[in-house]
């Protein structure tokens, strides 16, 4: 059980709630899950239950959303989450090489986190970067037209 939401987080919740018409309160599920993930890096089931209490709706529906949408992480992630696109356009432009280079460089497989907690490596489906493939995201930031040299530069530039 993680601690209760901080007052600062609840201020952000209230700001989000004010954007939606009152009759649309369940629309807050995704915005609030995103809000908690941005703050904590992951969202637990207990967080989902508390979000449901805040909205005033059945907890099961928030838990369902938490587990159904792929962008929500339920466990702590590395400081930098690297998401490599492996869909068709990126595959045609070398995403397999991108992934192999990162695995070798970081010494981890897909779905794993480095021992120092710095990097988590994941694969994702189409990021809508097909014209600038191959592409990946490091946390929120897009990196495109990747090759080995560019990957090395990106990894070295991270604080």
């Amino acid at each position, binding site marked *: 059980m993680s601690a209760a939401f901080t007052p600062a987080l609840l201020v952000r919740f209230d700001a989000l709630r004010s954007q939606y018409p009152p009759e*649309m309160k369940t629309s807050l599920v995704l915005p609030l899950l995103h809000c908690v993930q941005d703050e904590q890096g992951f969202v637990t089931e207990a967080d989902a239950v508390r979000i449901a209490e805040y909205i005033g709706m059945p907890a099961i529906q928030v838990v369902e959303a938490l587990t159904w*949408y792929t*962008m929500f992480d339920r466990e702590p992630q590395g400081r930098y989450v690297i998401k490599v696109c*492996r*869909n068709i356009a990126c595959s*045609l432009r070398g995403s397999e090489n991108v992934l192999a280079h990162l695995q070798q460089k970081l010494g981890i497989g897909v779905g794993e986190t480095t021992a120092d907690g710095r990097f988590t490596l994941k694969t994702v489906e189409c990021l*809508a970067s*097909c014209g600038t493939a191959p592409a990946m995201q490091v946390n929120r930031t897009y990196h495109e037209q990747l090759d080995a040299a560019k990957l090395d530069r990106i990894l070295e530039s991270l604080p």
Partner: protein
Amino acid sequence: MSGPVFMSFPVTATSHTLAEYRARGGYVALERALREMTPAQVGAQAKASGLQGRGGAGFQTGLKWEFVSKDAPVVYLCCNIDEGEPGTFKDRWILEHSPHQLLEGMLFAAYALRVRHAFAYIRGEFDLPLRRLQGALDEARAAGLLGENICGSGFSCDIVLHRGAGAYVCGEESSLINSLEGKKGFPRNKPPFPAVRGLYQKPTVVNNVETLATVPWIMTHGAAAYAEMGIKKTPGTRLFGVSGHVEQPGLFERPTGYPLAQLIMQDAGGILGGRKLKAVIPGGSSTPILTAAEIEGLTLDPESMTRAGSMVGSGAVIVIAEGTCMVRLLQVLSRFYAHESCGQCTPCREGTDWMNRILERIVAGQGTAADLATLRRLPTGIMGNTVCALGDAASMPVVSFIKKFGHEFEHFVTHGRSLHDGRLAP
């Protein structure tokens, strides 16, 4: 710069701002319409232009608006920014470089449909597009173009920016609506269509980014001028994205009916490394693949594409060079559809996973002739048997790849390895 509706200005570090959009003539038509036109007149212009949905299905935009009851007390508008059809990267360009064009289009639609609350449902991964759209909303609000009493017209409308969370199926309009209600993105059975019962059971219109962002041009230059561009039956221009094995991948605004071969061989610089063209997926990953011979003489419009057995879809042209292993390429797609099947309908949930497991086995060199026979049979059990089109979208590549490149699949199961070197990238 390559087209009249979108790519009509040089992209700079500030071309997305309100000041520059206004300098290009932006919001003039909206201000005039709010002063001089009734909502019905705006809707009539959209209809007269012949504009069709640019998300992939190609439904008439004006007709979609017309389906909404004029007496409905509450109507919602959703802009579908869940751009995720593999090969597609056009909506993102609009958000990054001309977000006010989308906002103006949304406001036209909202005015025509008498919408008080509109929503921009944006895929959760988007970073710069999200920031650009948020910035544009803030600018528009500060300038009195959004919110209460827009431009003193008495018309009020708010647009809420709503982030998705990683689900391809949410690009399907009823799935998007469920997602916007805070639920899993399960598509709904139709009818009732969203125009009758959509978001929170209220009449709702869901339109694609490119569709809505075209409306300001129509309202500025007139429906007749728009209807004159491109092919008569499906007029206008489209943002075609060319990706894969071409020298210069990118986005090109071209009139409908533009020659597909010219787009690939000239505009996109031809095939990477001077290789020969093997195949083209012409309208996003879900559309049936065409061989190099089949694209000769084809034009980018529904009639021409239907004759060839494929679709214009989302305008995403994926180019594949000679030497590429089609078995491994199909497995990339089957993995995607199995991952994105929402789990609601058994034929799709089980079928996409089954097709993917067979293809995984084949590319691992362990497939059998019986596997290939099963793979040929599975789509018939999926297509037409599901709530939404994802099952069909997952099946069409399987059917068309095996139909057109069957010998590569047979070689793989007979010899346990690719007919080519197995690489997908050059």
